């Protein structure tokens, strides 16, 4: 599209003004016609009916704000440790040694999405689950208020999906459990053991979550991770979340790196952020001189 526009521009330069306007109109018309081409049959998100909305009332009550169980030694809980391939195990050992020495090789950098399965395994932040016809949406304070969409309208995964940090998720209800199947996760996305220890899934990762209430105010996410390039067998981690209903627990805005900046005022009186010096691992070291003091 970009190339055709450039080509069109070079042609237009040689035409009279009137012809140029006519050509541009034609290009616009073609573009509009392409944009209005309906999707193939069967791929519409149909309008929900009153019955669709009413059916949501029969699902388990996952309302409220959910707080994850604290991490275990800074990482996810598991019954059995991951069965890493030898190469991945060496990487984990190297990162563990760096962390133990106080020189963590942070896996979550530059505010790229932490993705799946970190969304389940590593977050220390609250989440909420929204049920609407055809999907479950997870909203979180995790990782800068990122969200997950789990399609529950019966669709499958796309045949050639774009790879993303959270992947493509479809879910189905098995009794009171939502079983979520996630594929198309970017290969650089980490299978984490801590903030400074983890292995990129290296592609073809597959995550199956079984999410269900285990008590009046407890919910379990049972996560099984398959990553054939770095794990010799699937790895399972389970985490319990606790419900809060007090409004002081409501989800709030969570930016990824506001803390790297000091609220400041520039010489013209505008409110600005000034970077705070940090060490190589991310610890704050000093307050910057306020702009107004310059």
């Amino acid at each position, binding site marked *: 599209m970009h190339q055709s526009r450039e080509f069109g521009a070079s042609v237009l330069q040689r035409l009279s003004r009137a012809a140029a306007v006519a050509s541009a109109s034609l290009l616009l018309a073609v573009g509009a016609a392409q944009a209005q081409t309906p999707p193939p049959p069967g791929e519409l998100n149909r309008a929900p009916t009153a019955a669709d909305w009413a059916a949501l009332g029969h699902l388990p009550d996952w309302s409220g704000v959910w*707080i994850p*169980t*604290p991490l275990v030694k*800074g990482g996810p809980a598991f019954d059995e440790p991951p069965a890493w391939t030898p190469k991945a195990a060496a990487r984990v050992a190297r990162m563990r040694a760096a*962390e*133990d*020495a*106080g*020189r*963590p090789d*942070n896996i*979550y*950098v*530059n*505010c790229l999405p*932490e993705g799946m399965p970190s969304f389940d395994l590593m977050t*220390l*932040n*609250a989440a909420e689950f929204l049920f609407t016809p055809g999907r479950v949406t997870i909203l979180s*304070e995790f*990782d*800068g208020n990122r969200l997950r969409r789990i399609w529950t309208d019966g669709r499958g995964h796309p045949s050639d999906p774009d790879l993303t940090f959270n992947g493509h998720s479809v879910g189905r209800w098995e009794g009171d459990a939502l079983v979520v199947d996630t594929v198309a996760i970017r290969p650089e996305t980490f299978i984490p053991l*801590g*903030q*400074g220890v983890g292995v990129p899934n290296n592609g073809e990762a597959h995550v199956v979550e079984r999410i269900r209430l285990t008590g009046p105010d*407890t919910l379990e996410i049972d996560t099984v991770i398959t990553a054939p390039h770095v794990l010799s067998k699937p790895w399972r981690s389970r985490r*319990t979340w*606790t419900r*809060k209903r007090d409004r*002081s*627990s409501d*989800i*709030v*805005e*969570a*930016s*990824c*790196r*506001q*803390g*790297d*900046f*000091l609220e400041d005022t520039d010489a013209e009186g505008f409110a600005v952020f000034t*970077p*705070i*010096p*940090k*060490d*190589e*691992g*991310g*610890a*704050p*070291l*000093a*307050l910057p001189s306020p702009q107004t003091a310059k």
Partner: protein
Amino acid sequence: MTRRQLLALVVAAAIPSAAAAHHSFAMYDQTKVVTVQGAVKTFQWTNPHAVLWVLVAPKDGGAAELWPAELPTSPGNLARMGWSKTSVRPGDKVVVEINPLRDGRHGGSLKKVTLVDSGKVLAIGPIPQAKP
């Protein structure tokens, strides 16, 4: 080491890193607790981590030195633990317990702060009623 070399070292170390953001706290020595006393310079109520900046008077006299005490969590979680952006205010006299930076620089991760005038204690702990 000359003063100029020392300054160069400090400046080099203080260049902002590649935006670690959600970072490991391994640079803080979890096996040690250091207690410092001073006055709050500012309380940075920010995501993903809040930071309490305290002006600490050196034991041997001299000008007050600035110590950052990084809280290991976010305003959302801190609110659930009973904190607010006004829990500590600039000028408040405080006693702060930290896990110190391993390299000896001033600073650490905050474990507990006591407000001297009121005796109120604010700590980092589990969110009340949340399953441990």
